[in-house]
C-alpha cells in the first residue's frame, strides 16, 4: 500500500491491501454482531418476560456492561487466550477469531439490554392477548421477538456501530498483523501514529461510508417491512 497515496486514489484504485482490510473488518464486526444477536436477544427476552430474585440487579448490570471499556475487554481476552491462560491451548491469540470473541463480549450486553427493553415494552401491550390465547412461555418469547423485529433491527445496528468503531480490544487480541488481523480501525490507529495521515483519512472515509451504507440498507429494509406488516 502506498503510504503517500491520497485517500481518494486509494479508494478509487481498488488497492487490494485496502480492500482486504475492509473485508476483514466487515467479517469480524458482522460475525460478532451475529453471535451477539443469537446470545443477546433470547437472553434479553428471558429477562424481560421472567420474574426472579435479583432481576433488577441483572438489568442494572446489563445496562452497565453496555459501557464496557474495550481495552479492558481486550486485556481480559488476551489473558484468557495467551499461552499460559485458561484457553491458551486453543491457539486463538492474534487471530481474527480472537477479535470476534472480544467484539462479541463488547456487543452482547448492548444487544441484550436494548432487546430487553424493547421486548418488555411490547409485553405490556400483548400480555393480556397472549395470556387469553393461552400462549405458553416459549411461544410468548418467539412471538415478542418477532413482533419486536423492527426495534431489534435498530438494536443490531447499535451493536454493529459499536463493533465497527472499536479499536482498543481488537488491537490487543489481534495484534494488528498486516494482511492477517489488520482492520480499518487498527490500521487508522497505526497510520496516524506513523504520521501517514492521507492513508488514515482514506481508511476513515471508507469506514464511515460502510457504516452509512449498512445503516441505509437496513433502514430501507425496515421501512419496507413496516409498510408490509403495518
Amino acid at each position, binding site marked *: 500500500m502506498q503510504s503517500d497515496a491520497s485517500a481518494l486514489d486509494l479508494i478509487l484504485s481498488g488497492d487490494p491491501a485496502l480492500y482486504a482490510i475492509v473485508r476483514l473488518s466487515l467479517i469480524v464486526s458482522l460475525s460478532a454482531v451475529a453471535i451477539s444477536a443469537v446470545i443477546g436477544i433470547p437472553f434479553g427476552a428471558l429477562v424481560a418476560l421472567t420474574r426472579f430474585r435479583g432481576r433488577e440487579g441483572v438489568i442494572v448490570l446489563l445496562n452497565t456492561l453496555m459501557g464496557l471499556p474495550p481495552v479492558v475487554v481486550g486485556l481480559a481476552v488476551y489473558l484468557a487466550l495467551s499461552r499460559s491462560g485458561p484457553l491458551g491451548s486453543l491457539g486463538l491469540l492474534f487471530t481474527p477469531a480472537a477479535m470476534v470473541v472480544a467484539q462479541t463480549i463488547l456487543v452482547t450486553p448492548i444487544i441484550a439490554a436494548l432487546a430487553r427493553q424493547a421486548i418488555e415494552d411490547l409485553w405490556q*401491550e*400483548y400480555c*393480556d*392477548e397472549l*395470556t*387469553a*390465547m*393461552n*400462549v405458553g412461555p416459549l*411461544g410468548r418469547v418467539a*412471538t415478542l421477538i418477532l*413482533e419486536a*423485529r*423492527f426495534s431489534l433491527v435498530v438494536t443490531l445496528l447499535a451493536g454493529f456501530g459499536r463493533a465497527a468503531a472499536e479499536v482498543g480490544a481488537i488491537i490487543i487480541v489481534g495484534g494488528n498483523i498486516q494482511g492477517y488481523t489488520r482492520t480499518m480501525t487498527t490500521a487508522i490507529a497505526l497510520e496516524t501514529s506513523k504520521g501517514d495521515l492521507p492513508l488514515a483519512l482514506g481508511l476513515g472515509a471508507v469506514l464511515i461510508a460502510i457504516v452509512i451504507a449498512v445503516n441505509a440498507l437496513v433502514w430501507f429494509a425496515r421501512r419496507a417491512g413496516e409498510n*408490509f*406488516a*403495518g
Partner: protein
Amino acid sequence: MRAASSDLPIRFDAVTVRGDAVIMLDRVSVQIEAGAPTVLVGPNGSGKTTFLRTAMGLIAPSAGRVTWGGAESAPPLRRAFVFQRPAMLRRSAQGNLRYALAAARVPRVRHDARIEELLALVGLDGFERRPARRLSGGEQQRLALARGLARDPDVLFLDEPTASLDPAATKAIEDIIRAIAASGIKVVMSTHDLGEAKRLAGEIVLLHRGRIVERAPAADFLGAPRTGEARAFVAGELLV
C-alpha cells in the same frame, strides 16, 4: 369442532378481588349459564372489567373461587376475550387469525378455510392481506372478534366492544354479536351504554362498587327494576 366438555357454567363463589388499596370485586356469587347474552352494566370502577377478567381466568381471586364447567383450574381453551382496545400483531389480518388458530391448536390444514369463514362472518372479506394495525378502530374490533372466534369458544367475553366507535361501526359490531349469540356461543359483555344493553341483552347484571346490585332478565331489569340503583340507572341518572 366442539369438545364434549364445556367451560359453562361459570360459577363465582364469594369472589373477592383486591387491587392496591381498593376492593374491585366484593364477595360476588353468581352463575353464568349458556343462553342469551349477559350484559354487565354499571359506572366506571364498578368492577365490570375485573368481573370479565376474573371470569376469563386472567385475574385470580383474592378470596372465594371460580369454576368453569365445575373445574377450578381450567386453561382458557374454550373461552375467548375481546379487549376494549385489542392489540393486533404486526402482521396481516389473516396473519393475526392464523396465529390465533395456531394458538388454539387448530390443525394447519384447516387454517385457510377457517380464516375465510371468520373474515366473512365479521364482514372483512377481502381484507386478508391488509396490515391489521392499519385497519380502522371498528375494523380492528371486528378482526378481534374473529380472532376470539378462532378458538371456537363456549363463551366469549367482550369488554366494552363498541366504546369509542361511531354509530355505523357500533351497528356492525352489534350485528356480529347477535350472530355469535345465535350460533350458540355464550356472550358475556360489558357496556356503559344502556341502549346497547337494551338491544343485545338476554339478562342484565348491574354492578356497583364491586358488588352485584341487581341481576334480572333484560325485560324485567328495564321494565321493573327492583333496586334504587337499578331504577336510577334505567332512568339515566348518574350512578356514583
